[in-house]
């Protein structure tokens, strides 16, 4: 709760800061809309050739695109700016301000930087998910619940992944480039996982966990996610949060020189 409060406060700071730049507003909105157009055009071209892609109907694919946009938006909102700043601060040895605050340092480092414009993507993603849910017709409370749970689990996994990468900069130089790999592979998540060859499916599940973050939640909208899968997602989220926490603490110990 405390974490959410702090995140919202940082978010507000970010939004208030950017609201002074009206020209940015238009440009950034245009950017998000172009991204949306790109996604929809892709769907359009594919659906003009077949009504069903690997078992996914039009509205399923739209939901998938929605989750893709939403998760990408949340990453852009908090995760990417904060983690990039974290890596920079670690390299330049100026994590100090985050460490002298009487607040969990991981929390401050994780939500401290915000790119407010990604809220457009969050809104567009939510809109697409909502539209597709309405098109599906009646959605039970249970289905909504699984959607929320799998979304949160997916976000937790992706966040842990970024945190782990960022933390590796406590030991290694030049990890920024590895983050580009994430962006490249994330592109693949806008389509159903099942269309990819086996090795890529594994890479997208284990190496870079975009499958869990995007495909799983979208599948709940098709009503094709069993209980064991939801449980698995929650378990994966818990494990990865725990692991990245350990890595963060180890990194801090190294930063303050307790381990060397």
């Amino acid at each position: 709760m405390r974490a959410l409060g702090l995140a919202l406060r940082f978010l507000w700071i970010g939004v208030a800061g950017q609201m002074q730049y009206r020209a940015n507003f238009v440009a950034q909105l245009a950017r998000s809309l172009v991204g949306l157009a790109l996604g929809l055009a892709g769907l359009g071209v594919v659906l003009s050739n077949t009504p069903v892609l690997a078992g996914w109907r039009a509205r399923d694919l739209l939901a998938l695109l929605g989750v893709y946009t939403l998760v990408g938006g949340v990453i852009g909102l908090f995760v990417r700016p904060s983690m990039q700043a974290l890596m920079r601060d670690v390299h330049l040895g100026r994590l100090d301000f985050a460490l002298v605050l009487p607040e969990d340092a991981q929390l401050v480092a994780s939500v401290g930087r915000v790119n407010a414009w990604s809220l457009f993507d969050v809104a567009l993603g939510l809109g697409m998910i909502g539209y597709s849910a309405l098109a599906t017709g009646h959605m039970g409370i249970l289905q909504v619940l699984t959607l929320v749970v799998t979304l949160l689990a997916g976000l937790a996994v992706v966040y842990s992944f970024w945190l782990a990468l960022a933390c590796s900069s406590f030991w290694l130089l030049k990890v920024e480039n590895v983050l580009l790999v994430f962006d490249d592979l994330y592109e693949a998540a806008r389509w159903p996982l099942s269309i990819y060859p086996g090795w890529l499916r594994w890479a997208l599940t284990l190496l870079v966990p975009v499958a869990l973050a995007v495909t799983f939640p979208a599948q709940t909208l098709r009503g094709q996610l069993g209980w064991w899968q939801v449980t698995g997602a929650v378990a994966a989220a818990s494990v990865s949060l725990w692991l990245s926490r350990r890595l963060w603490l180890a990194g801090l110990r190294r930063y303050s020189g307790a381990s060397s």
Partner: protein
Amino acid sequence: MIALAGVYLAQLRVHLASQLQYRAALLLYQLSAVVEPVVSLAVWSAVASARGGEVRGYAARDFAAYFVVVMVVNHLTRTWTMNEFDSRIAEGTLSLSLLLPAHPIHNDVSDNLASKLITAPVVWALAGVLSVGFGAVFDLSARRVALFALAALLAFVLRFALEWMVALLAFWTTRSSAFNGLYLTALLFLSGQFAPLGVVPVPLREVADLLPFRWMISFPADVLLGRGGVSWALRGLGAQCLWLAVVVMLLAVVWRLGLRRYTAVGS
């Protein structure tokens, strides 16, 4: 002409040296070159299997061959001045390069060539791996390869000139990245990058026919894969030359107008 060649040689050497410093990063960047065609390939293979193995004359292995070649062409013709031009204006490095006695475009060309020299072997090797992995079959002849080389060269020059012109938009707006995004999206669908133009909806194809984009990416691929005969390929080369003439003329005008604006604003 000889003087210009000297300039290129010198610039090429500098760019090669500086890019070799970052070779690891440079190779990592090539990953996006692979992901994109693999995604397209997977999507269209799925479409093909949903339609019983074929989409308007393209079977899964045809898609494989097409996207592998598109990947190679896209790598050869890719430019990145667009992403840098606004910061060149903002940080004043453009003013510095304007003081040099050679047009700034030459520096960008040699920077581009240097990067291609380093990364081409990697991308070609990756293309080989993908071809084997996805069962792409090529039926090549010396004539086709020669036509392809010519088409790819013209595609590079055309795309370079066009995208350099798009980059110049930064003279008029400080938010050029939004326009660049729009351009790249249009390019994705109208150049045959996302899907062969043969399988896109008819209205989209008609728009693509009116624009230069398809001559920058899908045309050389189609030439190599033998879609359309030799006479079609020759007509295509003609279209490339025509577009090149138009774009270069436009570029000259836009550059002059942009410079006038830049120096009038006076930063």
